[in-house]
């Protein structure tokens, strides 16, 4: 978590981010990092905006000085070079020290967020994610529920060369799957991630999660989704020819609806369903 006072500083820097999320122009929001629906994604967003504002301030100073020099010290305007201005210990100490302080400030803002990301204790449930060339496999640990999740059929048709179906005709082109990963809102979800063949990376921007899936090794992380909704992402690590075609769709449900969904997917329920439909 980023300390409150840091948020306050960030907020006071420019009024734009203090607007409620809904008030920001939607075009701009689509071109920026999403604020997202987890504490991890919000920390990333806050740091991102803080860094942008720091960079804008430095940029105004540095680019301003460059532009001032280019306008005022032109030979065509009769400027004569001051060939003695080749050294100034005072200036050099200042422009070494100021960036150092800015960096210390940024580091101080960042470290707590980083520690927060790595705190996987006290989780409510665990899912296991496995990357394959070119689909994902999800397992709800201890529930006996698992399935593959691959690119949706309409996207898969439209993405072929000379396809009859055009990408524009497909809802959520390349960001839809045949089976979505359903998760509860409010629970601390721990994930274990690995891969079966090559390295993949599971990235859902609105969850603030990107973690490599490495064959033979298991990575661990967590997130807690605050709002019901559908969140889309993609494999982020080049994994072969269909790297661009193994999306991720997470559907976050209120806890009761999730419990009902999970119960219906348990092996016993599936067996009962099968036997009741001869």
């Amino acid at each position, binding site marked *: 978590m980023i300390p409150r006072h840091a948020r306050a500083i960030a907020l006071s820097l420019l009024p734009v981010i203090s607007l409620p999320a809904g008030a920001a122009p939607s075009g701009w929001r689509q071109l920026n990092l999403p604020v997202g629906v987890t504490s991890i994604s919000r920390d990333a967003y806050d740091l991102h905006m803080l860094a942008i504002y*720091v960079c804008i301030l430095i940029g105004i100073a*540095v680019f301003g000085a460059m532009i001032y020099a280019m306008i005022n*010290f032109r030979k065509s305007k009769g400027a004569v070079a001051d060939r003695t201005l*080749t050294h100034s210990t005072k200036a050099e100490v200042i*422009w070494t020290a100021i960036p150092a302080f800015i960096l210390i400030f940024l580091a101080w803002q960042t470290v707590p967020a980083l520690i927060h990301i790595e705190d996987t204790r006290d989780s409510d449930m665990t899912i296991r994610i496995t990357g394959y060339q070119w689909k994902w496999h999800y397992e709800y640990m201890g529930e006996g529920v698992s399935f593959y999740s691959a690119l949706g059929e309409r996207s898969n048709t439209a*993405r072929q060369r000379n396809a009859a179906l055009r990408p524009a005709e497909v809802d959520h082109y390349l960001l839809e799957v045949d089976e979505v990963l359903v998760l509860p809102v409010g629970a601390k979800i721990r994930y274990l991630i690995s891969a079966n063949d090559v390295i993949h990376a599971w990235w859902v921007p609105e969850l603030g999660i990107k973690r490599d899936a*490495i064959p033979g090794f298991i990575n661990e992380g967590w997130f807690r989704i605050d709002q019901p909704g559908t969140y889309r992402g993609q494999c982020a690590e*080049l994994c*072969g*020819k269909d790297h661009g075609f193994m999306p991720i769709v997470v559907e976050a449900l209120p806890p009761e609806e999730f419990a009902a969904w999970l119960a219906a997917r348990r092996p016993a329920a599936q067996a009962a369903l099968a036997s009741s439909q001869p």
Partner: protein
Amino acid sequence: MSDTTHHGPPTGIRRWLFTTNHKDIGTLYLVFSLVMLFVGGAMAMIIRLELFQPGLQFVNPEFFNQMTTLHALVMVFGMIMPAFAGFANWMVPLMIGAPDMALPRLNNFSFWILPFAALMLVSTLFMPGGGPASGWTLYPPLVLQTGDAFPFVIFSVHLLGISSILAAINIIVTIMNMRTPDMPLLKMPLFVWTWLITAYLLILVMPVLAGAVTMLFTDQFFGTSFFQAAGGGDPVLFQHIFWFFGHPEVYIIILPSFGIISQIIPTFSRKPLFGHDSMVYATASIAFLSCIVWAHHMFTVGMPLAGQLYFMLSTMLIAIPTGVKIFNWTATMWRGSLSFETPMLFAIAFLFLFTFGGFSGVMMALTPADIQYHDSYFIVAHFHYVLVPGAMFAAIAGVYYWLPKWTGHMYDERLGKIHFWLSAISVNLTFFPQHFVGLAGMPRRIPDYALQFADLNAFMSIGGFLFGLSQLLFLWGVVRCMRGIGDKATDRVWEGAQGLEWEVPSPAPYHTFDTPPVVK
């Protein structure tokens, strides 16, 4: 000073094949680099063409991945590194008052490895299974799925590495031993300094890359398991070794750029470089830091918290010496007498746009935010800003700056300015929107994308085509000078030029500094 040509060069192809003359070899490097610019550029055009619209119109995903991989390898190892080696060959002896490089035959050898290595690399496209498609980072296990091309890729990386190491040895020996007697180390021009430090970096990290790809090779053909979990290895080990090479490699590309900019800005400000010694120390600090920050390329692999903290904080430190450089260049212009010929225009664009790329670099050092940026187009935007309007603009600035000295003819200033403005505008049209599609969630290295990225991708492609076409003006401008078209250049060429290279005639005679010159 003697401009005798008592044993002038042989003529025809033999001159170029057997030459041991630093100027000839410098020219060979630069011409080779220019050719590779258009080879790598053509690949970029194919990439931008496919990304112009959603859906797949022109190439298959397999071929697209080969294009991204080879575009990077060709541009890094075939274009920008040889370009700076060419500058070093031409300018280091002229700047330190040496008659030639210290090891001329080695010099010939290190150049002539290059065309064969590059040819082998590009020829992999025509092999069964196609060229390498794993990205230039060659991560296993994916790279082990390469077809027949695999051993050829490894071998060409070895050859390119050998060429770089030999060139680096030559440059170090030359700088250490061949300086005119009254040039102590701290009196050396900054271009020479940056190359000296770069050469040490090359010798430090190129063997590491060679080791990494050799381990890939034995994993593939001799049953080792360095990077295969099934045999007790670790795929992430490769990433550590690769980036131990890969991060210093970034500075191997950018330090000579700093050197060129540090020559050009004083000339067109008519004022000595501000803080010469602190520039040297900043360069050395950057080189040192570049060797201890490699895993900031790997914040999503699942490193321990302590490792992430260390690599985050050490990475942030690089901003300090880099900042010193930017401020010193600005201070060099301060109270100067500025004029804006083409080399200066490119140098100023470098100053602005490299700094801009540095800003996104600082953002990426912040691990929790970098987890979002990693492997997205935001990263693509960042490294293209530091490599294209950064390193490549510095190289172009250097060509315009020294071309009159090399050929004896001034380039066409109007053509140069048109080339500059087209390049400076289109490079931003191409790469600036990449920040936004990246933040909005577009991963890198994908041949097709979701519809919300369509408009900006079309825009970027048009920018990319414009940038590609603009470089034909550069080619034309250079060829004109090489063919002797254009005004005769004076010895000093630029009013504010300082340094030994401007004391010799233009074009620089085949042999210079038979006796050590006096530094004024």
